[in-house]
């Protein structure tokens, strides 16, 4: 979603007459949007087929009179269309089964169902990012549980308009980045293209590799008071929300599983399946990878990028994962460079190549335009297609449609006048009361453009006079749009259904059989009666969209049919993902190491309350050397470690189970909570125990659930390496002969080896037995030797560790480290050996990074 701020202006006028007539149609810039061939929606009471549309045998037509009676005092607002009620106040047939079902529930049951949806969203990790003045935060996904229902027959008509529009935009893109005849022949004013920041000159004359500029588009649409659908804005740059639409569907189906099962709701999976096939067909070579290209974890829709990549089984890549070699885009993986053939781009075009586009971009891939010139990679959608989103273009589309397609525009745009020409300017000034005036180059709908648009009716008289001046001086940069009142749809507010303004985002994908429209969409519902509050940042919510047929619908799953089953190994792991997994392992283990020492420290502090006693002092000094301050019961650096782990994990959300992600988030939240109130001593000991248990929970999830492939190996190596370093450093520090009383027992406790020591050695704790158990015991999972053995075993399985009888430098080093310590006797272990080993481990980490993680 792209809802960073609240629009300041309300787009509502008190009245919303049909758009002005086409007195200006002779000019180059006229937008007459209303009286088109687009048929009226099934709005009137007589238009829709009476009777139970999809009741699955249930008596749907029975008057709604049950426990809740949710529709009893539902009244549509005057002069505004409503999705559920027709103009006579009757419930539309398609809504009746749902309303009847709601009527059979009591409040407790409904609350239960809503909670089911919320639980799903929480567990799946769906959230949205709120932008505050000081801090951005993740908020629970605001699902409006009641779906928006649209009858199949109405949807079919709408779909034809959407398909036509997608095709029109494709033809416009081909012209703008090709011969540019639309300007030369007077269909588009040149300043609208030449002055447009979305017009990317380096892309002119580069035809797309597969012949198509557009593959996936979305359209923000709304229903006007006359019942007709209007396009509020076209989304072609990097349309978002399709993944959220899927999540809304799953969550809503959880809440209303019985109703969903009985209603003939079109499924969404086949739409994504067809699109996946299109992308696969776009590869030039069988070896080519397909990837979703994301701007990175800081992007507000990053979750969706990860979700889509996982759902469709594509790699999730960032610009720095890619490099261009001899005109071919390659991904850096742990097994070397691999070719990429298709990039589903969620990155804005201008950031794609710092050499030729925005030179300040740090998230692009230098040289990627060269690959486009060589036609070795397909971008979905082509770079530069963002220009099609330009608000002022809406004014010219009817005429361009007639010119390019030889047809009338089926789905009208919201009435738009570009103020770069005199007649249009005068019209906008004269009809100011009904207008919203905004930037011509804006790519957002007027109710969601960061308050850049001004509502004519909201202006004082003095301001109105200056508007005329503004239009005269800056007309080229301005458009006037007629305000439409969006239709309302029921939302569940305070125990009943209330009509709330809504808009829909609908999707079209290019498939083998032409454009296909997703049978559903992403609904946005205002938090008040004003459409300005439709964005999530302004408190709006999201809703599922059910396209309801009166016949049973096809059910397709994205899983392949059984006969076509092939087992494939996971694709090559991108180096950046491997790097994040490796560091996730290290940070997690670093946190665990700190927790174990702190727990032992606070356990002893609880007995003496004297941090100056020699034993505690010694550990305090040790901890200070690794940046842990024992004066803080829950030290900041511990928090920082867990935050770093979380950050590493957030970079690879597509490779993470929702469970693992939740466990890690829970850990982070708990540390934060403890930090606020935990006291030194017993309280801290207890807190550390809780945290260790949660950490073990995360480790368990990884151990039990993560597929044993390259990614898991890097995570494991990170953990073993950090644990080995931790134990080496600790034992080295404590290996002097004159350590304070109790040091050895404390070491055993930190190494979780008190019981083992008791069982294995029939003597008191002495330096030699501790060294034997914590450094050299191959069976103790906390000993140094154990870590080295595991590292060696994992490295052996990494790509190219062992080729043609030769060990790679990384493998050789892992072998050397392990065998060196394996043949060392307890007596030979001294401080110098620990120091050497610590350096060796650091060096090994460097070689590993150089080989696989760069």
């Amino acid at each position: 979603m792209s809802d960073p701020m609240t629009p300041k202006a309300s787009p509502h006028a008190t009245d919303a007459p049909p758009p002005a007539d086409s007195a200006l149609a002779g000019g180059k810039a006229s937008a007459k949007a209303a009286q088109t061939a687009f048929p009226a929606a099934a709005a009137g009471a007589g238009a829709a087929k009476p009777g139970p549309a999809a009741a699955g045998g249930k008596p749907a037509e029975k008057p709604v009179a049950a426990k809740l009676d949710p529709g009893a005092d539902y009244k549509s607002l005057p002069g505004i269309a409503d999705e559920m009620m027709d103009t006579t106040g009757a419930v539309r047939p398609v809504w009746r089964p749902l309303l009847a079902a709601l009527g059979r529930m009591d409040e407790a049951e409904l609350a239960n169902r809503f909670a089911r949806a919320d639980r799903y969203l929480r567990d799946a990790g769906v959230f949205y990012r709120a932008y505050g003045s000081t801090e951005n935060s993740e908020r629970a996904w605001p699902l409006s549980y009641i779906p928006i229902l649209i009858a199949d027959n109405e949807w079919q008509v709408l779909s034809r308009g959407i398909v036509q529009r997608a095709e029109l935009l494709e033809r416009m893109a081909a012209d703008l980045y090709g011969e540019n005849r639309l300007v030369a022949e007077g269909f588009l004013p040149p300043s609208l293209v030449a002055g447009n920041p979305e017009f990317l000159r380096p892309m002119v004359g580069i035809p797309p590799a597969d012949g198509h500029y557009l593959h996936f588009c979305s359209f923000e649409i709304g229903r006007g008071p006359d019942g007709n659908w209007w396009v509020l804005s076209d989304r072609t740059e990097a349309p978002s929300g399709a993944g959220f639409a899927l999540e809304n569907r799953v969550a809503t189906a959880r809440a209303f599983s019985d109703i969903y099962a009985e209603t003939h709701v079109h499924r969404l999976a086949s739409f994504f399946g067809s699109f996946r096939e299109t992308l696969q067909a776009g590869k030039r070579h069988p070896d080519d990878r397909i990837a979703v290209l994301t701007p990175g974890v800081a992007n507000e829709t990053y979750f969706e990028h990860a979700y889509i990549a996982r759902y469709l089984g594509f790699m999730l890549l960032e610009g720095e994962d890619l490099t261009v070699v001899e005109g071919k885009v390659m991904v850096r993986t742990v097994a070397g460079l691999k070719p990429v053939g298709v990039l589903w781009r969620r990155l804005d075009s201008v950031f794609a190549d710092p050499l030729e586009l925005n030179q300040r971009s740090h998230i692009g891939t230098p040289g990627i335009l060269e690959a486009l010139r060589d036609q070795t990679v397909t971008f979905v959608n082509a770079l530069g297609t963002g220009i099609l989103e330009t608000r002022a273009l809406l004014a010219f589309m009817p005429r361009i449609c007639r010119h390019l397609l030889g047809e009338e525009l089926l789905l009208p745009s919201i009435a738009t006048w570009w103020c770069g020409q005199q007649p249009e300017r005068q019209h906008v000034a004269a009809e100011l009361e009904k207008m919203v005036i905004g930037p011509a180059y804006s790519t957002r709908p007027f109710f969601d453009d960061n308050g850049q648009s001004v509502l004519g009716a909201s202006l004082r008289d003095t301001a109105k006079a200056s508007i005329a001046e503004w239009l005269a001086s800056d007309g080229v940069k301005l458009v006037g749009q007629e305000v439409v009142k969006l239709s309302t749809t029921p939302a569940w507010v305070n125990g009943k259904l209330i009509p709330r303004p809504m808009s829909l985002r609908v999707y079209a994908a290019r498939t083998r059989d032409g454009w296909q429209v997703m049978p559903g969409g992403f609904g946005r519902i205002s938090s008040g009666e004003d459409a300005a509050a439709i964005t999530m940042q302004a408190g709006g919510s999201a809703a599922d969209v059910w396209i309801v047929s009166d016949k049973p619908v096809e059910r397709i799953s994205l899983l392949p049919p059984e006969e076509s089953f092939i087992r494939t190994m996971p694709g090559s792991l991108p180096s950046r993902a491997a790097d994040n997994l490796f560091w996730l392992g290290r940070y997690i283990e670093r946190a665990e190491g700190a927790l174990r020492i702190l727990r032992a420290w606070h356990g002893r502090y609880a007995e003496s309350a004297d941090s100056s006693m020699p034993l505690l002092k010694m550990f305090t000094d040790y901890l200070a050397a690794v940046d842990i301050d024992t004066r803080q019961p829950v030290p900041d650096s511990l928090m920082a470690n867990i935050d770093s782990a979380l950050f590493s994990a957030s970079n690879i959300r597509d490779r993470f189970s929702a469970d693992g992600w939740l466990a890690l988030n829970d850990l982070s939240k708990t540390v934060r909570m403890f930090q606020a109130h935990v006291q030194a001593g017993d309280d801290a000991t207890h807190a550390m125990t809780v945290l260790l248990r949660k950490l073990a929970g995360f480790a368990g999830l990884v151990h039990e659930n993560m597929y044993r492939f390259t990614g898991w190996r890097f995570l494991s190596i990170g953990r073993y390496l950090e644990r080995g370093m931790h134990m080496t450093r600790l034992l080295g520090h404590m290996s002097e002969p004159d350590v304070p009383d109790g040091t050895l027992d404390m070491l055993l406790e930190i190494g979780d080896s008190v019981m083992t020591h008791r069982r294995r050695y029939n003597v008191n704790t002495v330096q030699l037995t501790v060294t034997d158990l914590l450094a050299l015991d191959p069976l103790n999972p906390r000993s140094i030797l154990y870590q080295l053995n595991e590292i060696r075993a994992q490295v052996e399985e990494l790509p190219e560790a062992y080729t043609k009888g030769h060990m790679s430098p990384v493998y050789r080093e892992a072998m050397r480290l392990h065998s060196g310590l394996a043949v060392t006797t307890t007596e030979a272990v001294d401080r110098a050996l620990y120091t050497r080993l610590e350096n060796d481990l650091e060096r090994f980490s460097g070689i590993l990074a150089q080989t696989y993680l760069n």
Partner: protein
Amino acid sequence: MDAKGIDEAFSTRMSPDEPGRTNPRAPAGPIDGRALKQSTMLYDITLRITYRYEVPVSGGRHVIRAMPLSIPGRQRLIAGSLTATPLPDERYDRQDFFGNAVTGLLLRKTHEKLVLRMQSRVVVESQTETVDLSPPLALLGADLDAVWSMTADSPHHFLGTSPRLGEDAAIAAYAREGVEADMSVLQIARRLCSAIHTDFTYDPKATTVDSTPRDAFKIKRGVCQDFAHVMIVALRALGIPAGYVSGFLRTLPPPGKERLEGADAMHAWVRVWCGPTLGWIELDPTNDMAAGSDHIVVAYGRDYSDVAPVIGVLKSYGSHETHQAVDVIPVKIGG
């Protein structure tokens, strides 16, 4: 938008060359803002740009715009070559949207030093004095409305804002000073050219290659890049299409001194669209003159970002040093 991983590596945008920063004013002919009749000139031009890296680098990519253009009636490139040391692993040569010659290089192997060397021989035609056939400012809008074109020379590309040039109220007010209703577009442009020359002090230390026109306008100091940027913003504020020209300028040694090798520098000036009859006219605010046969054009663009001589991206852990040497040597024609 910008998310950094744990990886310490960072990309460095190599600061592109800084035109004019080593070379104050140019030839100082007795030219007071008018194009004089000048003779056809033949030049041998060399440019050497040297990068020295503190820490050896690899995988650097560079896009170079340094080769003089061939422009019918203006100048002709007779021969030219652009080479790099070490030898690049990949190279392409093509034209960009505005018709400029672009060379792309990729250096995969580790290196501590990169030398780019451009050599060319160029004929620059003599320029006749411009007769002012430009329309009054009030009529320019109608002329613009009549141009339905998106070609590289279309004035529509050179209005409004561009990557490096936003709108600026202070510069717009400066542009409007002394503009009378009946003044022609060329008159206005020449006035601005002179005004900037008079009001601004040439000072290579006052600005950097990343300075905005506003920065330079505030202190009324800068180099040719700043003067050109300020003049473009001013012209566009009046609705006059204006673009950035990067190129070379022949300079004369101080009286009585030998010409020093490599003492010239890359230069920048402005071109102004003066209506359909006159078309594009080039003016040099640094020297308050029309660009004549001492000005050799390398690239046209909307602002510096379109024509930067070198745009480079590489991974680096250290800083780097740049050195630029230019020689514009007139060759005698026919003795």
